[in-house]
């Protein structure tokens, strides 16, 4: 943790690339169908090839918000340690040893550049662009501002995200994970 702390940029910035991950799965029609079903999304672009082509797409596209699912690495792979009860999603901010015992997502901002297609696999580059020490009503800690770039397998940048995570040690025990 201390090594990372030493590398973190302060309030004046100075970006540091801290991780690069690969999504666990290619985007599939089955995953799209499950996602659409769970959120009751009505757009025909996710289920009707003719409708997708009529709007200029090569074929079906995934919901745009499915990006974060497509980018998520595997929780477990053969050879890995067994998952312990209470395991968290493999977002890098849960695995970087950021300072503080708790973290909350303060804000999220995603710019979509390209649609997600069946067969796409997403690589994510995590950069910490700024950290800002701050005591709040819940504890003492720092805001850590990430910039994420999402590339598909042919190298094309499909989206960028800016996320601010508040990492803190609570005055009283409370907290929320993303």
């Amino acid at each position, binding site marked *: 943790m201390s090594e990372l702390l030493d590398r973190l940029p302060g309030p004046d910035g100075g970006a540091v690339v801290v991780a690069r991950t690969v999504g*666990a799965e290619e985007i599939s029609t089955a*995953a799209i169908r*499950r*996602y659409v*079903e*769970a*959120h*009751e*999304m*009505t*757009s*025909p*672009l996710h289920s009707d090839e003719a*409708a997708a082509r009529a*709007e*200029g*797409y*090569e074929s079906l596209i995934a*919901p*745009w*918000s*499915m990006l*974060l*699912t497509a980018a*998520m690495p595997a*929780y477990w792979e053969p050879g890995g340690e067994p998952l312990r009860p*209470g*395991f*968290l*999603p493999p977002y890098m901010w849960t695995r970087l040893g950021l300072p503080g015992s708790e973290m*909350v*997502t*303060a*804000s*999220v*901002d*995603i*710019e*979509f550049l390209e*649609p997600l297609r069946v067969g796409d696999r997403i690589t994510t580059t995590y950069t910490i662009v700024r950290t800002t020490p701050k005591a709040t009503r819940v504890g003492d800690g720092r805001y850590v501002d990430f910039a994420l770039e999402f590339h598909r397998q042919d190298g094309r940048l499909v989206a960028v995200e*800016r996320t601010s995570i508040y990492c803190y040690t609570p005055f009283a*025990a*409370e*907290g*929320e*994970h*993303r």
Partner: protein
Amino acid sequence: MTVAVGDTVGPLRMFLSLQRLVMVSGANRDFAPTHIDNEAARAGGAPAAYADIMFVISMFERLLLEWAGPAARPRRIGPVRLHDFVVCGEDVTVAGSVVAVTAATGDGRRPGFDVEVEIGITQAERRPVSGRGTVWVPAQGSARSQRIT
């Protein structure tokens, strides 16, 4: 479609049951206990299991695209700010209003507009999420001239 600043977008409503949260978790692969287990959520200070950020982003997308139609294309969702928990056991209402309309070309130089919408999620008297989304919509009568690849 014609769009003007001040236009209402939505609302859309969904009852957010614990069963729904489990279904969403299976679809988006976020299995954090606080999103699917009331006890785990309460241990962290929330009144019940609560939706994750991916659900919030998805509902913003639904709102924008069900309003703007399949020819529209989301440019940006954000900044989205989480003020409180979006908890299960209550209705979720997602609604917005247009705050800016700017001429912008889409793919294939198709004429249209970027429409910025201020969006909020409310549960009863609470407003746990606020944010913005921008969606490109084609100008009326504009034809697609090139495929999106």
